[in-house]
């Protein structure tokens, strides 16, 4: 039976994707556990307080970095790799290098997280990994990006689909911002508050621009694919791409920052201009799925991706609000900013990646998920978790900000007023942890199944003294390399 070209392409990515997603899923679970532990400390400050490794100031950054560097980046890269292969109609060759890169990545994340917990963090938000973690991650990214660019450059299908612009731009984005940030903040630090400016630039370009590029690239592929309708429209997506990269890259400097006024002014203008790509993305997404939502309701990955795009627009609006000088007086230094980041990283990016993984991983590996129905449960748990996490933090943040603006309110009263909101958001984290556990079980189960199948084939190959060439061919085909 001749294999379809899509099957060949899918199977060529099998092992790198398993390496990337397997580790990513593990780090997602770690991030949820660490985040939950950190959140519990608000209700019981004495909880685990004697252990220096588990103090809040180390747990929370570790949880954040585990989510971003442990889950978001590798999952994004894996989906991008597969998507570029599919859209280029070109299989992946030399899978051993991406597999090595994936393992190098996960090693870097492990070293980085342990470094944070022992007190060796760099002190910069979203860049806490010291050299032992950041260097492996950087080179792993370069290798994976190189492999993706090789697929893209050697593509059989020369016409570009919108997703490819987004993904190729993202491949280029990260090495520049990561190397700049690490060189100017950690290796040869610049003086004083310029560190903070570069730190904000880096965090914005990673959390907003990079995740936006990869997430939108993935969404613009899957939404038309699932609904069976064409993307509405090519030129609007192009417009969204250009306006997004031109405007979103300049956001990030908070309005009250201790820097000359021109820096926050530039960011405020950029944030106001962000309405244009947000509208464009919203229209593209809405017009593409219009009329199909009800019929696709039982399509799990569609729900994930659709919800992700909604969260992208919502978190974009929150970002715009935070940059508006009048509103920022209330939202700055409050839980509102934290809510926006979690909505973007988890509600938008992670959910989009979940949808993509649920769709592509069985096709790449050739084995079904062990518990396919759990995907629905995962979706609803995540939806509930995000709502329970984000809404109290956002509302609580506004209340906190209003109280901070009123000098007659004692600080202790502000702390007390936040507790009910934090209680609800801790519950949200619990829901998210459960959902992530289900995802972990599914991905790990599939990986285990694959490894067992591989082992069985190998044993069969070793045992039987039959015609060697045919056994080799069948073994190689199962591993996804073209004969």
């Amino acid at each position, binding site marked *: 039976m001749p294999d379809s070209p899509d099957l060949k392409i899918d199977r060529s990515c099998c092992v790198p994707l398993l390496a990337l997603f397997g580790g990513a899923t593990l780090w997602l679970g770690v991030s949820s556990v660490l985040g939950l532990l950190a959140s519990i400390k608000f209700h019981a*400050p004495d909880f685990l307080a004697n252990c*220096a490794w588990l103090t809040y100031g180390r747990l929370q950054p570790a949880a954040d970095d585990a989510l971003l560097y442990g889950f978001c980046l590798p999952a994004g890269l894996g989906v991008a790799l597969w998507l570029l292969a599919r859209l280029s109609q070109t299989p992946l060759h030399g899978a051993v290098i991406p597999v090595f890169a994936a393992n190098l990545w996960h090693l870097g994340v492990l070293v980085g997280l342990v470094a944070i917990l022992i007190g060796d963090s760099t002190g910069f938000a979203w860049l806490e990994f010291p050299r032992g973690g950041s260097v492996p991650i950087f080179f792993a990214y370069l290798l994976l990006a190189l492999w993706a660019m090789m697929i893209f450059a050697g593509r059989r299908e020369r016409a570009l689909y919108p997703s490819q612009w987004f993904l190729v731009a993202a491949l280029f984005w990260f090495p520049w911002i990561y190397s700049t940030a690490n060189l100017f903040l950690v290796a040869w*630090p610049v003086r*004083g508050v310029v560190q903070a400016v570069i730190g904000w630039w880096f965090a914005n370009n990673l959390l907003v621009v990079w995740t936006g590029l990869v997430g939108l690239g993935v969404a613009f592929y899957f939404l038309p694919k699932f609904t069976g309708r064409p993307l509405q429209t090519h030129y609007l997506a192009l417009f969204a791409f250009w306006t997004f990269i*031109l405007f979103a890259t300049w956001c990030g400097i908070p309005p*009250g920052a201790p820097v000359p006024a021109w820096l926050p002014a530039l960011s405020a203008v950029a944030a106001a201009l962000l309405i244009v790509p947000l509208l464009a993305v919203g229209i593209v997404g809405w017009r593409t799925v219009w009329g199909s939502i009800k019929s696709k309701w039982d399509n799990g990955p569609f729900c994930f991706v659709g919800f992700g795009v909604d969260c992208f627009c919502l978190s974009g609006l929150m970002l715009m609000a935070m940059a508006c000088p009048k509103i920022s007086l209330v939202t700055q*230094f409050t839980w509102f900013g934290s809510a926006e980041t979690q909505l973007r990283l988890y509600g938008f990016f992670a959910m989009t990646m979940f949808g993509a993984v649920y769709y592509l991983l069985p096709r790449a590996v050739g084995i079904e998920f062990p518990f396919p129905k759990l995907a629905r449960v995962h979706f609803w748990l995540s939806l509930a978790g995000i709502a329970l996490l984000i809404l109290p933090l956002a509302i609580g943040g506004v209340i906190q900000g209003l109280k901070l603006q009123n000098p007659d309110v004692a600080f*202790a009263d502000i702390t007390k007023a936040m507790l009910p909101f934090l209680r609800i958001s801790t519950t949200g984290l619990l829901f998210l942890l459960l959902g992530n556990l289900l995802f972990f079980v599914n991905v790990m189960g599939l990986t285990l199944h694959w490894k067992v199948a591989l082992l069985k084939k190998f044993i069969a190959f070793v045992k039987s003294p039959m015609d060697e060439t045919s056994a080799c061919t069948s073994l190689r085909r199962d591993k996804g390399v073209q004969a």
Partner: protein
Amino acid sequence: MKNGFLVFLASLIALGGSWCGFVLAPVLQLGGGKQTTILNSTDLYPVGRPGMANQGLQVYRANGCAACHTEQIQQSGVTCDVVLTSAGKSPLAVTNAISSLKLNNIDKVAADAAVDAITAAGGKAEIHIIATGPDITRGWGRRRSVVEDFLYDDPVQLGSLRIGPDLADVGTSRPDANWQLVHLFAPQSVVTDSAMPPFRYLFHVQRINGEPSPDALVFPKGFGPRAGYEVVPTPQAQELVAYLLSLHTDVPLHDAPFTQPLVVSKP
């Protein structure tokens, strides 16, 4: 777009633009590490932190204090107060001049007009500049934070969440080292309803050997170790407190002016 090169070019333009604006330009404009002078004085600002305070900054970083505390004071406005310094030869004329004027919490134009009116009536007046804002009213500092406040810090720990209060001027508002140490060991003993976790691992609880240690913490009534024991800070705790006590935002600068009653030059 038709090909990968155009995508690469678009990314280069977009990211290159923001790199120039937020990396290159700030390094060129602000990265020189230039000190400034305190307003109306020749004293340089800032002078570097003492050695223990610099190590304290590393303890601050290692324990992630910036996850809950910010070090940047906000200022939402500036007002003037007109203060009479001399009634001159005819106090009655001066009184008449100022009877219809508002002299507190006014803008510069109104303040200048008031001073002119007083001078015309033969008196003398000064304009006091006051920085305003909720942070300042709370006592978290006298003015907004500016570039010069962080000149010698590496890494700069500005923070982004105020789960705890702002610390930019904590060396002025809470200068007692013992209070700071007790607050680190048992925050709830000195701040009611505090959400701050206790940092007991920065301290040793030890049996009192004859004489109590001079470094031992003095606790408020009802708190503290059991009888016969004392709490002694580790070097890390002392460095951290030295850093906290070195945090000041209480002198006027050219880019964040306010009137300070007395500026005495150092010997």
